[in-house]
């Protein structure tokens, strides 16, 4: 009898409390319909308030870049607001500079939609879509780098600029219960707009790279969001220097092929840094390109070649090799993609050679 009474009482109390919470949620968390106004009337629509801005916008098919999916740990989902929404939260503070706070820039995942809002986002984001894509081919490039080719299913084509990136939305696997989003540069050509190719290096313990390398099979379907990013060919520059390491080759491959395809009157030189010969990939592809085009030069460099590599190319850290090649920086632009350490070191070398910071574009990961 007492067991029945216990179970009954606990259930009753829990039910009453749960009902109270649900009622409170309905009454207190109901902010009604709110109007979202983007870029002073470029786009306006009604949404139901009560959720965070990032997911509210996503439900209206406007995708703000975000790698953590709304946990305030990546700091990517910044938007500038035109309406007052209260003080900056302690969760946002680490990701915002003083200038950004003064300009009313906030992390959209931490702003709750409670009333009509005005906000400003780069116009490119209007083109961002969520794509269903099918893996058509997975190719191993080196011991830890694989190339993934996607065929777009819905929508069936994408418009992007060479150098931009997309986000891969993973599915839960093994003991990873949540899906995450990670950004990867597109390595294929914008003209081939029904397929996308990305290059992923396996990061030990990486949630997305492990998923991509070890769980994904040819034929699987995935969600992709994009395109994002401002790492693409900018105006000016007769000579373009590209420097990449590891999977940083991806956006550079797309840009180099795109420039050569358009027969732009520019001189290109591409430095690729690796440790040993087995870390190099696409060597035949770029060597062939070098032979076919007078205005393209391919410089792979190894920092510690094995004796068995029989390497006859450049030897040394990529910075040393770049320093040997780059002496005249007139009308030059540089595009860098790789680890933060490599990029910082290369920027120093290029600046020492006389290139101004404004002519150096980079994408670090």
């Amino acid at each position: 009898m007492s067991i029945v009474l216990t179970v009954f009482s606990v259930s009753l109390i829990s039910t009453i409390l749960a009902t109270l919470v649900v009622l409170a949620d309905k009454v207190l968390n109901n902010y009604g319909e709110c109007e979202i106004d983007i870029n002073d009337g470029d786009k306006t629509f009604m949404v139901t308030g009560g959720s965070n801005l990032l997911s509210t916008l996503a439900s209206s098919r406007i995708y703000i870049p975000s790698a953590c999916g709304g946990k305030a740990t990546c700091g990517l989902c910044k938007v500038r607001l035109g309406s007052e929404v209260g003080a900056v939260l302690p969760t946002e503070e680490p990701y915002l500079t003083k200038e950004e706070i003064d300009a009313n820039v906030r992390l959209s995942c931490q702003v709750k939609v409670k009333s009509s809002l005005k906000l400003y986002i780069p116009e490119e984001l209007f083109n961002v879509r969520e794509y269903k894509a099918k893996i058509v081919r997975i190719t191993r490039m080196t011991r830890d780098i694989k190339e993934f080719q996607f065929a777009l299913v819905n929508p069936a084509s994408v418009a992007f600029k060479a150098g931009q990136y997309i986000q891969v939305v993973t599915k839960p696997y093994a003991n990873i219960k949540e899906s995450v989003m990670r950004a990867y540069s597109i390595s294929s050509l914008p003209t081939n707009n029904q397929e996308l190719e990305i290059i992923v290096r396996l990061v030990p313990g990486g949630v997305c790279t492990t998923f991509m390398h070890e769980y994904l099979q040819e034929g699987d379907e995935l969600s992709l969001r994009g395109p994002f990013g401002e790492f693409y060919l900018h105006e000016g520059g007769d000579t373009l220097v590209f420097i990449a390491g590891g999977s940083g080759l991806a956006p550079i491959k797309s840009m180099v092929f795109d420039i050569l395809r358009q027969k732009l009157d520019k001189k290109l030189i591409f430095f690729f840094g690796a440790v040993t010969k087995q870390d190099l990939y696409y060597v035949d592809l770029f060597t062939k390109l070098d032979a076919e085009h007078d205005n393209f030069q391919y410089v792979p460099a190894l920092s510690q070649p094995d004796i068995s590599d029989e390497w006859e190319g450049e030897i040394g850290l990529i910075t040393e090799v770049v320093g040997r090649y780059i002496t005249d920086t007139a009308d030059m632009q540089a595009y860098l993609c790789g680890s933060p350490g490599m990029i910082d070191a290369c920027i120093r070398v290029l600046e020492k050679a006389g290139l101004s910071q404004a002519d150096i574009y980079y994408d670090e990961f």
Partner: protein
Amino acid sequence: MDGGPAISPIILLFAAIFTSNMVLANFLGMCSFISVSSEYKTASGLGKAVSLVMIVTTVINWLVYRFIVVPLGLDYLRYIIFIVVIAATVQIIEMAMDRYLPDLYMKLGIFLPLITVNCSILGISLFMIIRDYSLVQSLFFGLGSGLGWWLAISALAAIREKIAKNKLPLGLEGPAITFIITGIIALAFIGFSGIFIIQ
């Protein structure tokens, strides 16, 4: 049933702040006390939120205990009941604050979910039952304990902020020095003991 021990609520208030401080004398609520005390501003925000939740939950738990738990003879279930009541109360406070006091929510809101699992909150409810406090006594006891917790974490955070700029011996950084500081503050609070005795 409404008598309680013969202690004036005012004495109970001060005793809960100083002589039987939740953290420094009873060692309850240590986890957030240690982990959220590296910055004074944040620590103070958490302290205020804890105070608020302590007052509200002691009153609600007192009423639940006297009018539901005791009549139904469910005394042995009070731990579970108190915990679910605290969890639900915190949820509702969070939503209400977000709606009606957005400025306060900006400052305290993110701490509220953290408080649900703060053991000092449950501790207060259990102490008031064990010591047989009346509703008014419980209210003041809750208020005093909250203020005491706030005082303790603010003091610790202020000291940690000063220390952060100094070089510490290897192995003493982070939690190690925090525990030592906590111990010293607790020693200092022993100086208050004997002024009021509530347990």
